[in-house]
């Protein structure tokens, strides 16, 4: 399957799972999108771990930036990999990433490089081998529950909104 098809599949399945997906051609466009997203509301606190090049390149209003991930309302970070088949983003604890940060914020903004999108689950797990990182976290759409009369409610423990920026 060609790259465009894989990217389209990823966007389709992520959207179906309840995420918003936007495409940016470079970091400049990514920052324009971020500034729109981050301008939307007042009284926001943004956590961005700054562990990867994209996270370092993300321009975030300094006054809104916090290192206290437990208090942040928005978490901006980059996913390590993604799976087109399911519309899933993948993170690991490697490099000191805090895997609870993306869950505690009510809005999760995630950058993913298109070359890191795998076509199917098998492709990702085939690369994994027999020594996976200590923690692999998969995220498919926002946090949801149907525990009360089967009515889908978003944001029960994790984010109620998930925005994915494709690069």
């Amino acid at each position, binding site marked *: 399957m060609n790259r465009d098809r894989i990217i389209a599949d990823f966007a389709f*399945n992520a959207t*179906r*799972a309840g995420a918003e997906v936007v495409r940016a051609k470079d970091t400049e466009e990514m920052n324009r999108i971020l500034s729109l997203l981050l301008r939307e509301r007042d009284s926001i606190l943004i956590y961005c771990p700054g562990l990867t090049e994209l996270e370092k390149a993300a321009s975030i209003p300094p006054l809104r930036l916090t290192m206290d991930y*437990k208090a942040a309302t928005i978490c901006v970070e980059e996913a390590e990999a993604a799976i087109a*088949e*399911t*519309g*899933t983003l993948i993170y690991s*604890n490697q490099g*000191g990433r*805090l*895997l*609870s940060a993306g*869950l*505690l914020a009510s809005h999760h903004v995630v950058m993913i490089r298109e070359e890191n999108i795998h076509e*199917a*689950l*098998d492709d990702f*797990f*085939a690369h*994994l*081998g*027999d*020594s*996976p*990182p*200590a*923690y*692999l*976290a*998969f*995220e*498919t*759409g*926002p*946090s*949801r*529950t*149907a*525990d*009360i*009369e*089967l*009515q889908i*409610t978003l*944001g*029960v*423990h*994790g984010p109620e909104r998930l925005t994915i920026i494709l690069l």
Partner: protein
Amino acid sequence: MSAKNEIPTHPIPFRALALRSLSDPELRATLSLVVETFTQKRQEALAGLPWEEWRERLSSLRLQILNDLPAFVHLFAARARAVGATVHQALDAKSACEIVTSILREREARRVVKSKSMISEEIHLNQHLREQGIEAIETDLGEYINQLAGHGPSHLIVPAIHHNRRRIGQLFAHKLNVPYTEDPVELTRIARKFLREEFLRAQAGITGANFAVAETGSLVLFTNEGNGRLVTTLPPLHLALVSIDKMIPSTGDLPLVVRLLPRSATGQILTSYLSVITGAREAAGSWGAHELHIVLVDNGRSRILASPYREMLKCIRCGACSNACPIYRLVGGHAYGSTYPGPMGAVLTALLEGMERAHPLLDGSTLCGACAEVCPAKVPLVTLLRRLREQKVEARLTPWVERAAMAGWACAVRFPLLYRLGKVAAGVVWPVAKRIGRNTVLGRMPDFAPRFFRRRIW
């Protein structure tokens, strides 16, 4: 709900519990919504996919594990230790509970958060912890509601579905001291706020595992709410209870189970969150070193493995059989009076808790086979149910009326004259019996056909 480690021996009052559910119109309405929604979503999620081929593969994968279970458990334990986990083995519920309490005690952990775990329900861990002065807070919204209400789960996937929004609103107002609301969004927000505090101050997190990967020593956890990840990343200690039948050979088998479990359970392509945890994490900033303890629980699995019922251990706890079962659809999970409801629950409870206690559950089946048809692991539920029923008859656990009727029938079919005489007598007695017993089950029985079946074909 019984909440002791020792299994009570009196039979589960299935009929009485079922009658209670049947006379609760609100419960029946919610229940039919659940089973219809899940059934439909499941069908949609599987449409156009090689379902038969996938379940055949899952079935043989699970059999491969069962054929060599001790070796896989051994491998899992060795690999998990190699990546820094401490592995404990518990033969029964009592020792599993004791291991958990002693780990928590050593670290003086009194506040504990839990993510939904059926094995912890099975061993009645919460009750045990409470007796030891340790408060374990359930963080799955459904389980949290059940905990506030003091109820057990009524469905494998949506455990609090027996409460409607009004009951939950009253429960929250009463127990959490918040203004009454019956808006699910508002109720969820209230739970989020209360549980967020619990997450942040918990000293330990307890989870189960949907699967355990033998080759890597990994634990696999599926959740939609995200509580599975928070329970395993925020507190400094993670304690996982894993029943030994949860093994899968390698991470290469994960795509198959990832494709089958959520589709069978909720009709989703994948749950919102999935964690694959391989050993303890190194110290990393403010969250400190993360300690991982894994308790491998047998609690009767080895006994089932050595019995003719071993294929029950192929089950991956998706709950699809309950949703498909015409009896479950009417009576709901609490009628089963046990940890596990529905067709898989009837079989597993009989195997775990013994025939004396569980035999009434075996009546709660029409043997129609709908359960086996939807099972992603091809557990032969009908065969297992029928075999257990035979065992029930052999153990003389059926009522004397039934035994007498069966003996009479067995006698009559052997002698054609007696049989014909019986038919004539029944033609007279039956309408009378139905009139007398018109307010009982007898009155609802069908009339005899005007012409006997044999006459109709010849």
